[in-house]
């Protein structure tokens, strides 16, 4: 399978995704420069973490105008799989491919730590290898990860099952103490209505090898690999 990892000026999780999907998962990985428009026949697209365009103005606000994003939009509309993480989540919400917005953490400072997230849905191309209710241990690293939308949109999002991951404690309990950034309803990751675009604030690419402290991120990588293999077969 072939995955394309977007690279904006200021992106820094690109190489980590390349490692997790390439070296660890054995897939073909290409890096796609933000000024290009050709997705090079990739089977899946990763919008990685970083500070695209310096996060000037607002996180993701400039990145959504990069030429590659128009191709990503068309790709997603045709059912192509797009996964965003961290800054990638921010970019996908700015681009209108996912609902909501990511605001400054409630604690107001940047936070890098391991968190637990509960898998709310396993019928998506990004979570098929997880168990429903499974607790994954995955690190976060962001200053603006508070998932926000107004109450009406939040209700709609919940009603359609758009929440894929929620911050929880080690036992899977969704509590205010387990919410690192003040996200509404402890939301850590959401999916679009068609199920082709998903993003989360935690970094699955950082926990795909035991020596880095955990392998739960592999479940998300493997789910995507399964999904695109399904498309091919």
């Amino acid at each position, binding site marked *: 399978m072939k995955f394309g990892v977007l690279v904006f*000026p*200021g992106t*820094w*999780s690109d*190489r*980590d995704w*390349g*490692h*997790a999907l*390439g*070296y660890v998962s054995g897939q073909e990985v290409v890096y796609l*420069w933000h000024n290009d428009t050709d997705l090079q026949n990739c089977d899946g697209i990763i919008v990685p*973490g*970083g*500070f695209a*365009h*310096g*996060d*000037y103005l607002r996180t993701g606000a400039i990145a959504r105008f990069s030429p590659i994003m128009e191709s990503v939009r068309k790709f997603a509309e045709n059912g192509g799989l797009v996964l965003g993480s961290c800054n990638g989540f921010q970019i996908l919400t700015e681009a209108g491919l996912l609902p909501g917005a990511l605001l400054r953490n409630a604690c107001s*400072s*940047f*936070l*890098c*730590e391991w968190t637990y997230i509960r898998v709310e849905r396993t019928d998506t191309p990004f979570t098929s290898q997880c168990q429903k209710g499974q607790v994954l241990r995955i*690190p976060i*690293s962001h*200053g603006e990860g508070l998932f926000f939308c107004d109450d009406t949109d939040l209700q709609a999002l919940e009603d359609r099952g758009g929440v894929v991951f929620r911050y929880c404690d080690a036992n899977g309990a969704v509590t205010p103490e387990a919410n690192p950034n003040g996200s509404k309803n402890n939301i850590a990751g959401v999916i679009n209505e068609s199920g082709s675009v998903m993003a989360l604030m935690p*970094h699955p*690419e*950082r926990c795909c*090898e035991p*020596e*880095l*402290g955990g392998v739960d991120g592999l479940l998300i990588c493997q789910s995507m690999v399964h999904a695109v293999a399904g498309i091919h077969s």
Partner: protein
Amino acid sequence: MRQDIQIISDPTDAQLRETALSRSEFQLIKDLLGRAPNHVELGIFGAMWSEHCGYKNSKPLLKRLPSTGARILFGPGSENAGAIDAGNDLAVVFKIESHNHPSAVEPFEGAATGVGGILRDIFTMGARPIALLDSLRFGSLDVNRTRYLFHGVVGGIGHYGNCIGVPTVGGEVSFDDTYTANILVNAMCIGVAPKDKMISAKASGIGNPLLLVGADTGRDGIHGATFASVTDPGSTQRSAVQVGNPFLEKLLLEACLELRDTGWLVGLQDLGAAGLTSSSVETAHKGGCGVEIDVAKAPRRESGMSAYEVMLSESQERMLAIVDKEHIADVQGIFAKWGLHSDCIGYVIEEPALRIKDGDTVLAEIPTDYLTEKTPMYTREGLQDPAIAQLWQFDFSAVPAPESLSAELLAMLAHPDIASKKSVYQTYDHLVGNNTVIAPGSDAAVLRMRDEQGAPTGVSLAVSTDCVSRMVYLDPFNGGAMAVAESARNCVCAGATPVALTNCLNFGNPEKPEVYYQLASAIDGMAAAAKALQTPVVSGNVSLYNESQGSAIYPTPVIGMVGLLEHNLRPLPSSNLQTGDGIYLMGPWYDQIASLAGSLYMAAQKQIVAGRPVQIDLALEARLQKFITEAHAAALLQCAHDCSDGGLACALAEMAIWSDIGVTQEKSIQVDSPISALFGEAPSRILVGISPEKQAEALRMAAAYDIPFVKLGTAGGAAFQFLGVELPVAEMKLRWENGLVEAVKE
């Protein structure tokens, strides 16, 4: 007549202070040139002859440090940073650097640009930065400004490192009144490069163009190098502080690494202290040629800048690239891809001189050796401060015994030097890059090394920074040796073999005999330890004049150590005690009252910094370190933790807290003075946890290495019971976790 070429034949005192030159140095400049310099030339001499660029007080002393070894690829001074051979055709490039004065007046930008500067030193050599560490020292927390400085510095470090995507994996944070007016911000960076593709900082090839790349040149940071070479940093010097742009630096980093693989770069040098002046002079001098620069071609942030300002600006995120003239368009194309403009501002010339023009007008012409080799060097007479001999006589038996040892331990665990630094490092991305195997919070951080294709090489790096300045103050030779030994011990506690070090010498005004004595003696101590432990010095930085109102900081030679774990050896954790594990002190046992000399306990609880610290036995230190790495390689140890600040009590308590398990003291231990046994500080001591079935073999090995040891107790339960301290581990943990957070609350 334009001001910048105005001849200065008799400078005012203000002109001399602005350029940090003495009147006799000015005379030397006149003698060298055979004429009086003009304004631009004087500024250039001032910057290049500053302690910051020219090391005029420290160079003769720095030569005493060992700098050779089988693994050394680049030693001190030869390139922007030192480098060692880590096998697998990979070089580890590293250096530590200070940004003390800027951080003292503008903490956020001062610390941020300190990080930016050390990153550039690493990627200028063609290495990808894989880790940052920061050694921070602040003043008394009784002073409100200390909190402001603390939050500013931590914020600035996080901002720069997080934005550029290099993990901040370790360092130190400590507080002492000695740093109230002169905080220390030392940043260390470690990078990895393919050995055969490293880029040099030499200019060569007559006619090759010089490209100035990155940010436009502004008025920020003018006199930064000279500012760093005078005492009493004050808010009036805020304009000497630069403003950082980590996003721009990220683009520079990626562009430089992409260019590394093309072979089109002849040389590369970042613009740091003294900006364009120092970068052009140094590359020319190293290449044995000269450079001609037309300041009119330098892109500027604002209009009306003089040549003097362009040449001495320390605007950040700029690089000087010396490019193969056949490939100038190709090189500019790569910079442009990364959104960077690059302007040809001059050429390599044959005459070994720095020639500065503004259009057709020649503004300055100075032979490069006048600015490098001819920098005046001062070897001074050092004299120990007589007050130290008095302090050595301090009678510790007069110190009243505390009412409750448990209360004393709780207070120490809550002390900001000992307490958890999580509230600091959780604001730093310490995981990006997928290499962090041991995250901040242990004795050393551990990063795995991967090859150019991303495959792990089976080699990991342990990295640590250290210095206990109270010990250096009370006994500079011994303290300097202890700083090297402790940073090495930290790497050893992670199971690594220390291989090389970098250092940042933070001292007061070297023109004072007692400060010069501290500097010379501490360097001698460092040299002795570096030789004994076979950890040569590959790079470093000197920050002198850290004093205010005539009072110098404690001498603080911060050591950045790099150790290697090879052949897929996994790191040794700092805490992994299981029920039934024996806990041993490997190294000498001290319970005499004199071991309180220089201890954090005396400083923090009694406000006394006195006594003669326990002398380090370097042969024992070397054996102890060898024993720990050998025992780990033989899988005999559960965990190891260095015993330093706060003594045995704090080290043992930390092990218990981190492992979430109690400790019961071994019954046979007899002590003279419990307070000394608990809180006394001495070198060459490591606590280890050993599982019952491994104890006999581990102790046999310790005996074979001639290491003294004492069984302190056994892990188990939830209570900490040791030499009269009786506490629930949960209570100790709470105090330890909240100590720093509470102390710095605004």
